[in-house]
């Protein structure tokens, strides 16, 4: 367990991940910008992009490994990883909810939910593409900004720009996160 924590460099990366999530969240939670979409230019909350550093750190965490002993060892490393990812994601979600509760905006809570969704996407992509899947959440965000809006109203499939009170988005985020964890535990690792 200790060598695993060490190999993941979790003592450094986890605080970095949470800081890289929380500081931008506090900085931009009230800012909306007009980004050039392919259709019109919707007003988009910058909080949409706040989870990106966090999921990038998660990928860094998962890829900081010692391949030989981990692949041949008997310890259930994949489950440790899943537990670690869950812990970080839940911590980020709690932080976001806390920010939202302490007078922040509902976008902050939505950013917490998006951490779960994008992490799920990241983990699912990880089983298919390996470490380059770190670009999958980015591609999703670009896709959503590009074609995910009708006027200023997000389309149903976009998930991330929905409001924090949107139940389907929350359910989908949880499902995708769970699917990602399952893939992380059971799918064979793809070599980088």
């Amino acid at each position: 367990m200790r060598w695993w924590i060490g190999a993941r460099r979790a003592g450094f990366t986890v605080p970095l991940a949470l800081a890289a999530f929380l500081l931008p969240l506090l900085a931009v939670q009230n800012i909306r910008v007009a980004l050039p979409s392919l259709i019109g230019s919707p007003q988009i909350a910058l909080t949409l992009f706040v989870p990106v550093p966090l999921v990038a750190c998660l990928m860094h965490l998962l890829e900081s490994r010692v391949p030989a002993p981990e692949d041949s060892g008997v310890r259930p490393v994949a489950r440790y990883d899943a537990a670690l990812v869950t812990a970080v994601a839940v911590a980020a979600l709690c932080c976001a909810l806390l920010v939202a509760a302490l007078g922040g905006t509902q976008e902050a809570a939505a950013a917490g939910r998006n951490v779960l969704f994008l992490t799920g996407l990241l983990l699912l992509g990880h089983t298919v593409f390996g470490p380059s899947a770190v670009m999958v959440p980015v591609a999703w965000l670009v896709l959503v900004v590009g074609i995910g809006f009708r006027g200023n109203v997000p389309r149903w499939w976009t998930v991330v720009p929905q409001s924090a009170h949107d139940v389907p988005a929350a359910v989908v985020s949880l499902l995708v996160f769970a699917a990602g964890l399952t893939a992380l535990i059971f799918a064979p690792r793809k070599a980088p």
Partner: protein
Amino acid sequence: MKFTTALRSSSVRWAGPAVLLLAALYYMTGETAPPSQYHHWAPAIVSAPLMTLYALAYAAAAGLGVWESGRLRKAHIWESLPSRSRYRVAANILLPVVIPSWVVLLLPPAISLARSGTAPTLDSLRLPLMGMLVVVCHAIAGFALGSVLPRLIAAPVVAVVDWIAVAFTRATDPYWLRHVSGQFSDIGFGEVPRLVSLAAPVLLAGGVAVGLLLLWLPLGPRVLRGVLALGVAAAGVLGAQHLARDWPHDPPMATGQAPMDCSGVHPRVCVPRVASGNLDRAQREASRTLSTLQAAGAPVAAPDQITDIYNGPAAAGPGDRVWRMNLMTADRPHEVGYQVMVRALKFRCAEVPLVRARSVWLWGATRTGQVDMYQERRRNEGVTPETRQIESQVSDQVRDVLDRSQAAQRTWIRSNLDSCSKSATGSTT
């Protein structure tokens, strides 16, 4: 390394198709404007799809630059014996990175040009070329970042930050931010961006990129190189800001660049070549309208030239020797003649009572045989009980005027054009 080998081992293998797919979405969902609205003006056709794609191209280049640089670092390339220049190694690895971004900037405009059946011109290549240069600079900046930061964290963060930083300038207030970011707005008919407006973004991105390259010079003390690099980068950034600081919403554009065809004298009528099919008719209508009005006694100062409003400097020249009108879209009979009539009957005062203005125009339209066009204009403005009442007043008055003698009509039109009183002068007696 051979180029094909570099391409095969590069991240472009997976990133290239993804980037191109995102760019292709433009044609699946975004392109709603019919190609005909650009009147075959190639720079405008090229600028329309690029507007949404600059940020994607730059961000892809920067993110992949980070990724590839991290890959080199992970493979301990920089620690191996320097058998060839570092620049050469970097260029080798960055070439496959910039290619998908170049394709993003070239392919959609090419498709747009093909769909509208327009041949590209040299002027229309200015924007894509500017974008391609800026892409290279972004790739270099990404490469530099990737050689110090962990790639798995830095690549997505750099891509997203770069994308937002460029994209948000499209609608932001200090205008110079857009003029230096490499994000361009669309272009109107007959407009070509001046080289100086392309130089600003290239100067900014290029200054930073050259500064980063200088850090790698294999000679001189490190501090000196650092100072030099900082100086070059700062010069680029400040120079670009200085250049674009005072530009208005649109950067400097050369206007009136579309080739024109002209016909006739007094007035000489010029329209862009793409719309020159109706040129002779337009010239006939204009000259007949002007001579009829003059013969009827209206104080008309005929212009030397009538040219299209879209193709020329936005500010009209001094005097009234050149009239700018909507000639390009005037493809039905009397559309040009009617515009000339309205323009020729010039009121001395800025504000004229509605009934008087309408009476003057209806009189002019009747004398020049363009009553149908007058009525069509009124219909297009919308018909309400109020306008119907005004029109009946107008037609009563004009019928009355037209029954009079030539001399009386002449006095009527002159007094109506010159008078500044608020009431409609129904009779001159």
